[in-house]
């Protein structure tokens, strides 16, 4: 029983990190109608950039690592949007072109990592070592730090979306792009900022999860697929659905990993996705999956 609760706590913590990763993906689609298949590679890049700063070429403090890496991720995202996505918006087959271009970009970025850092796995050290006993449960500091950091980012994100002018304009574009143009919101700028934020969140997820999984140049794909499953299960474009699905699948991952081994996690996730879609074809909170 005790072990089970510890697993549950791990599950919730993974869940919130997955939320950070998946929310960026869903945001990108909700606001800019972009299915970003290079998302996994940004995850990898976040982790490797952190590795360069914290392990490989200097021994920076984690706080500094975040302060340096996150803005880089943001501008990387903006650049990708401006250079690759924006020109495609004129095309009739926008969706299709974006999928292909981001797939190509993903392979490019992954292999850039491979060329620079080699194929051997790397690992980030834990932020904090040791563990704490709370009411009889043993919880590692690392887990607590992860949880707190992810929670802070999630709260900041929600406040940003709810209160700031930029956040509001992002929601406006997602809800009614024409309405947004009518009030004078420059669409392309909002698309770019959204892409940047999405990349930033993904990179943050990469840094947070790197100590838990080993880093490899193509490791990001697992997380892209995880984000995909979370997002489909939660309902594409829905923040709330993403939140619930993240926790649900995070807990499932922890339990399955504990009982059967990590190899079984993906098959189980797919099973859950399948069951969700059987009941609700548009995902938990989705409304627009069906053809109109």
């Amino acid at each position, binding site marked *: 029983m005790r072990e089970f609760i510890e697993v549950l706590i791990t599950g919730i913590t993974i869940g919130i990190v997955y939320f950070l990763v998946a929310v960026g993906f869903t945001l990108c689609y909700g606001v800019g109608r972009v299915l970003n298949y290079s998302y996994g590679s940004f995850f990898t890049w976040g982790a490797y950039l952190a590795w360069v700063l914290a392990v490989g070429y200097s021994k920076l403090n984690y706080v500094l690592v975040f302060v340096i890496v996150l803005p880089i991720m943001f501008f990387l995202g903006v650049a990708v949007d401006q250079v690759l996505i924006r020109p495609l918006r004129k095309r009739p087959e926008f969706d299709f072109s974006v999928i292909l271009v981001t797939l190509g970009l993903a392979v490019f970025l992954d292999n850039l990592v491979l060329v620079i850092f080699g194929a051997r796995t790397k690992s980030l050290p834990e932020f904090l070592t040791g563990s704490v006993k709370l009411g009889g449960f043993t919880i590692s500091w690392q887990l607590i730090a992860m949880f707190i950091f992810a929670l802070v980012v999630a709260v900041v994100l929600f406040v940003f979306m709810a209160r700031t002018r930029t956040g509001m304009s992002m929601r406006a574009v997602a*809800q*009614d792009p*024409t309405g947004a143009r*009518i009030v*004078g*919101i420059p669409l392309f700028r909002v698309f770019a900022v959204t892409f940047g934020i999405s990349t930033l969140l993904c990179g943050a997820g990469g840094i947070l999860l790197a100590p838990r999984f080993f880093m490899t140049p193509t490791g990001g794909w697992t997380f892209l697929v995880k984000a995909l499953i979370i997002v489909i299960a939660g309902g594409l474009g829905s923040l709330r659905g993403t939140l619930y699905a993240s926790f649900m699948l995070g807990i499932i991952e922890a339990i399955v990993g504990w009982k059967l081994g990590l190899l079984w996690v993906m098959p189980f996730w797919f099973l859950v996705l399948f069951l969700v879609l059987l009941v609700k074809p548009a995902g938990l909170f989705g409304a627009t999956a069906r053809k109109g």
Partner: protein
Amino acid sequence: MLEVENINAFYGEYQAIHDISLKVAEGQLVSIFGPNGHGKSTLLKTICGLMKPASGVIRFDGHEIQGLPSHKLVEMGIVLISEERHLFPEMTVMENLRLGAYAKPARKKESENLEFVFTMFPKLKTLAKKRALSLSGGEARMLAIGRGLMSNAKFLAVDEPSFGLAPILRVQVFEQIVALRDRGLSILLVEQTTGDIAEMSDYIYLLEDGRIAFSGSTDQALHDDAVRKVFLGIT
């Protein structure tokens, strides 16, 4: 203030408006009437930068503005109040209004304009915390107009403000539009049917199948056979 010269606009290859020219002088309320599907909304969208004209010139305060992106036009003070409203459904009334003041010049005057909107539509103040999708048709129309006013507009393009409203609300909305004109705004208004607003307009255009069928002062227009021909197909 606004001059439109010989514009043509297409949906794909479907020519929605043919060679239309019109003028709105400062402080005027100009109305365009015509049955649905005759290119009225397209005309307003083209003026407000949501669509690009295939040819022709649009001048605002002497500057050529055709082809400029819509956010630039909003900053210049050209604001569309769409017939489809295009509110942000998941946001509150207050958030919708605040987004109305997105353009830079409008931000400075946000609280002042908000005050004005609330005096004009006191109902909106009581609804401030409700989400836009829960509003009734009349309330949503008020919000759409209110949001337009938040943009610190000099020129309003109003698309069928009476659409879907009960007669009593319709009159109310028209009166408010006239009040805005009297405060010095220039307004270009589009309606499917001539109604009370016709008498209050300074100048009238009748649109038939994307072309101007008649234009003139209010008295001339309303006693013309053109009305019967355009609207009822009989003479």
